[in-house]
């Protein structure tokens, strides 16, 4: 199975045409997606038409950009004119925007072909990848296992080779959780690195859009296309976008990588811990200086992030509880109701605390190391049925536990890359995350690429045919 970067090179070299690449994906979707449910909307006819246009451009020597002819798919909260944007709800056109999602537009401007819109948890809430309206996306490594959420379809589509890459969004872990559960590579960029215009907001203080693909190099390629200022999103940073590809070749020797000695290895599944520690050994063997570092209480950051997310989610989507409660799944309804109980005073205090906690983290961690490495999920993807068993309260507790290693980095706004680092005895992906300084995606991706240059976990594919 091609990586996105390899496919882009093959198209450029004329070894495969945009139409062939697109048809291969559409054939796989037709063959497999009845089981996998990665897509909510497949836009096959327009995808083939766009691929033909890319091919015609190629024949005329016109090159749109580094993703010319590469078939991608997008989480169903990215608005694209002419396609429904359900955001995982029962309402086909739940979200509308004046213009297409900026990140999608930039990928298309760079040559990408849009295959369609991907499954997700309802309103991007939830860590397991279930959906009461569209059906759960199925983890290709074990169809009865959680694919991770909320960008469940993005994780499944890339892992199953239905798309060369995908966009996900991450408010509490929603890019990294499905990336980890499905054995692919996913990047939550720094807060403000990628415009969120044209994408449904869940929590404007914690939302991030980012790439999900097979490798760190793929993510670098996509990030280079989507990052940068945008007059349509006031939170998009005016910082210049560096070249994310060229530094990938720089060795990681001498980089200081901190391993949290608190929180992240507590109650961790033993197989997951073995995989993460082995990944650290690989980075050490490449010359990185791996050392323990103590984090300012990550649970506090997680709690503060929760208060902010839940307040903002209810401000944005709470009208559904009043107007169409019967159309909401019980978990989503409960989450939105909870937000109504948080006083404005406490929400604002949480935002003030967040600023202070971010500075405290910088002072104690970035003064000592260049990167941080930690687990992403506390265990390999659990059975979906077991994850969703019991009352809403029990499920809520499980969801919080499953996302407890990702959520702190949303509050901190830091770039975090999830990478596969092995398989459990049951054949399920193991994963770790590399976290960097604000706006230092280049170093995060460089370390991820170095790891993937000497390992082959990212090359494994599930057997589906």
């Amino acid at each position, binding site marked *: 199975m091609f990586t996105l*970067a390899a496919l882009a090179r093959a198209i450029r070299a004329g070894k495969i045409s945009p139409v062939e690449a697109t048809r291969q994906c559409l054939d796989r979707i037709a063959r497999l997606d009845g089981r996998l449910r990665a897509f909510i909307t497949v836009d096959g006819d327009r995808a083939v038409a766009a691929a033909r246009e890319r091919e015609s451009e190629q024949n005329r020597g016109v090159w749109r950009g580094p993703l010319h002819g590469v078939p991608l798919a997008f989480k169903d909260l990215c608005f694209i004119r002419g396609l429904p944007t359900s955001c995982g709800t029962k309402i086909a056109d739940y979200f509308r925007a004046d213009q297409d999602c900026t990140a999608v537009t930039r990928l298309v401007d760079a040559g990408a072909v849009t295959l369609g819109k991907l499954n997700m948890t309802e309103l991007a809430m939830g860590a397991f990848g279930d959906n009461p309206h569209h059906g759960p996306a199925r983890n290709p490594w074990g169809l009865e296992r959680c694919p991770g959420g909320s960008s469940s379809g993005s994780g499944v589509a890339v892992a199953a080779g239905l798309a060369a890459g995908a966009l996900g969004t991450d408010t509490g872990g929603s890019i990294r959780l499905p990336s980890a559960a499905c054995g692919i590579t996913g990047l939550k960029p720094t807060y403000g690195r990628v415009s969120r215009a044209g994408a449904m907001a869940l929590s404007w203080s914690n939302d991030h859009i980012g790439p999900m693909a097979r490798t760190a190099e793929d993510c670098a390629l996509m990030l280079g296309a989507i990052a940068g200022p945008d007059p349509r999103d006031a939170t998009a940073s005016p*910082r210049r976008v560096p070249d994310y590809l060229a530094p990938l070749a720089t060795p990681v020797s001498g980089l200081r990588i901190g391993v949290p000695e608190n929180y992240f290895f507590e109650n961790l599944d033993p197989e997951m811990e073995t995989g993460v520690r082995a990944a650290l050994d690989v980075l050490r063997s490449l010359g990185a200086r791996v050392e323990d570092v103590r984090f300012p209480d990550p649970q506090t950051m997680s709690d503060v992030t*929760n208060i902010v997310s839940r307040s903002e989610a209810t401000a944005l989507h709470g009208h559904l509880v009043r107007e169409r409660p019967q159309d909401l799944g019980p978990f989503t309804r409960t989450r939105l109701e909870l937000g109504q109980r948080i006083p404005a005073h406490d929400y604002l205090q949480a935002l*003030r605390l967040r600023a202070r906690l971010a500075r405290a983290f910088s002072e104690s961690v970035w003064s000592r190391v260049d990167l941080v490495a930690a687990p992403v999920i506390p265990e390999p993807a659990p059975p979906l049925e077991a994850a969703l068993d019991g009352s*809403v309260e029990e499920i809520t507790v499980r969801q919080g536990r499953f996302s407890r290693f990702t959520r702190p980095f949303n509050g901190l706004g830091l770039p975090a890359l999830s990478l596969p680092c092995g398989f459990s005895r049951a054949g399920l992906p193991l994963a770790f995350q590399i976290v960097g300084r*604000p706006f230092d995606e280049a170093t995060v991706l460089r370390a991820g690429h170095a790891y993937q240059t000497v390992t082959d976990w990212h090359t494994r594919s599930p057997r589906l045919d």
Partner: protein
Amino acid sequence: MAEDKFQQAEVADLLGVIERLAGELSLSEEPARFIAALDDAAPAAHGTSAARGSAGAISGPPH
């Protein structure tokens, strides 16, 4: 009813965190300082800007 009690307990837990820590905040602390914290901790900008989606940016060996 059980759902209601659970929500009350969960919110109480979260708000307890705020109550415990908010007293330590200085009067000058405000939400916008989060963006300043990100900027302060970012590495110095490199002079390696590349136009978004620039052609010819594909590099490295195939996997």
